[in-house]
């Protein structure tokens, strides 16, 4: 006699350690296998795009901190670049170099959390996470020196930076840049050939190249699917065309490749920082910008390669002191479009890993 079975709906989240914030996956199960999945968003929606319409152009910068709160510096950079494009503001060279150094430090910090949380999802409960936090702490210390903050930095300004770096910054950065490759080697020694990681992440959550492009994936998710596309190379902003670095890509398009790409990108970021430190000129770090900026009527779209992917801002000006419209192209949200395709057919415990390998921040998904 055949058993009569029916699909079972399981809500994973909104409050669950593996959802990296308040996010819900509504999974339909056949036994242990996921046959359908619907992501549910909005638990952290604060209406940042609406709030931006009521603030001055400079006043929006602290709001951008709260998008991807694990990469505030990158959000600041993407926003101020868009305003500078909209208003045609030039940025002093020293500020441009410092922005590159800071954005790359932020990428390392972001990838450390991404990899740490991913290994956490794989079942290595918080041990690798704390190793990653040991190094992230040094980056946070560096950011504290320049901005006085440890999470939401609010450091970049339209036309430059809020202040120059203090004199203890460069020696501390130099020490970090010398130590960090050894730590990355250590991660590789611990995890790259780890039996559990290989068994759980290799061949899991495959996102074919064609589909990765079609769903507008970006960042490490796109590159792990073998697409050589990095905004820093493809559409250079700041001074990225002056530095020599490689774009790591994956071949297997699986969770393990996403992990490998992030580790490899950290090494490339260190390469960029070293070059930027050598070339760093002296001079001012901010150009003269009116306190109440009124860009001419028009619109601008600019994007950067943030730790999570292609982070873009679209601004419309009506010649008033506040943006008429401020839209954020959020890589976290758009990368999630791939989640359903990647998860269907896998079991619940794999779904946690696949979700973790995308690396999202709910602050950016919900805005």
């Amino acid at each position: 006699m055949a058993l009569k079975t029916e699909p079972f709906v399981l809500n994973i989240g909104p409050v669950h350690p593996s959802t990296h914030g308040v996010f819900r996956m509504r999974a339909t199960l056949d036994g242990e296998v996921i046959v359908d999945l619907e992501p549910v968003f909005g638990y952290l929606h604060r209406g940042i795009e609406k709030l931006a319409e009521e603030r001055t152009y400079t006043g929006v910068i602290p709001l951008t901190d709260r998008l991807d709160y694990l990469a505030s510096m990158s959000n600041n950079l993407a926003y101020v670049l868009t305003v500078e494009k909209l208003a045609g503001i030039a940025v002093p060279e020293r500020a441009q170099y410092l922005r590159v150094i800071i954005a790359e430090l932020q990428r390392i910090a972001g990838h450390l959390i991404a990899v740490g949380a991913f290994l956490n999802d794989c079942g290595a409960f918080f041990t690798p996470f704390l190793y990653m936090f040991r190094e992230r702490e040094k980056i946070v210390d560096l950011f504290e020196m320049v901005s006085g903050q440890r999470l939401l930095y609010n450091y970049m300004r339209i036309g430059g930076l809020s202040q120059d770096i203090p004199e203890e910054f460069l020696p501390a950065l130099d020490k970090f840049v010398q130590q960090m490759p050894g730590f990355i080697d250590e991660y590789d020694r611990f995890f790259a050939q780890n039996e559990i990681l290989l068994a759980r992440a290799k061949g899991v959550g495959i996102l074919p190249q064609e589909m990765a492009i079609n769903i507008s994936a970006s960042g490490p998710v796109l590159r792990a699917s073998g697409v050589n596309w990095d905004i820093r190379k493809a559409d250079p902003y700041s001074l990225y065309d002056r530095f020599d670095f490689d774009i790591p890509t994956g071949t297997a398009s699986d969770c393990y490749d996403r992990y490998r790409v992030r580790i490899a990108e950290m090494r490339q970021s260190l390469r960029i920082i070293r070059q930027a430190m050598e070339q760093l000129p002296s001079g001012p770090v901010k150009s003269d910008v009116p306190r109440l900026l009124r860009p001419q009527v028009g619109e601008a779209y600019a994007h950067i390669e943030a730790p999570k992917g292609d982070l873009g801002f679209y601004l419309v000006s009506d010649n008033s002191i506040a943006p008429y419209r401020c839209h954020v192209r959020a890589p976290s949200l758009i990368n999630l479009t791939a989640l359903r395709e990647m998860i269907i057919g896998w079991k619940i415990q794999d779904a946690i890993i696949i979700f973790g390998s995308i690396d999202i921040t709910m602050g950016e998904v919900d805005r």
Partner: protein
Amino acid sequence: MTLALAAKEVAAKLETKFPGSIAESNNNDIVVKSQSLFGLASFLKTAPGLEFNYLAAITAVDYYNYFELVYQLTSLKHNHSLVLKTRCYDRENAVVPSLVKLWRGADYQEREIYDLLGISFTGHPNLKRIFLWSGFEGHPLRKDYL
């Protein structure tokens, strides 16, 4: 450097292929009539030499008289980009064709525009609010909201 294609030249090419489908074009973008959007977009996606295989971003702006939808198209193959726009004049019943069938990446972004600006997308497989709950009244990013 991603080359921003001269929108006027692309518009002239499109005009010969799809007569009467372009509302206006300037140096930066092409505004197409919403009823021709899907046909034009699928042409731009596949036409040799253009091949915009990557829909980088979609957004919409409320200009009181009309809504403007902005599509940032990119070709990963040729590394060039184009800004495609369409307008929607009916505030009460704002409808434009969905592009999810061409670029799956449009899925959540169209849902976001539907949620926050109240523009419907015909042909979208799962058009419902994405950030706000289903009983929410109004569309916050409209300029007449609050």
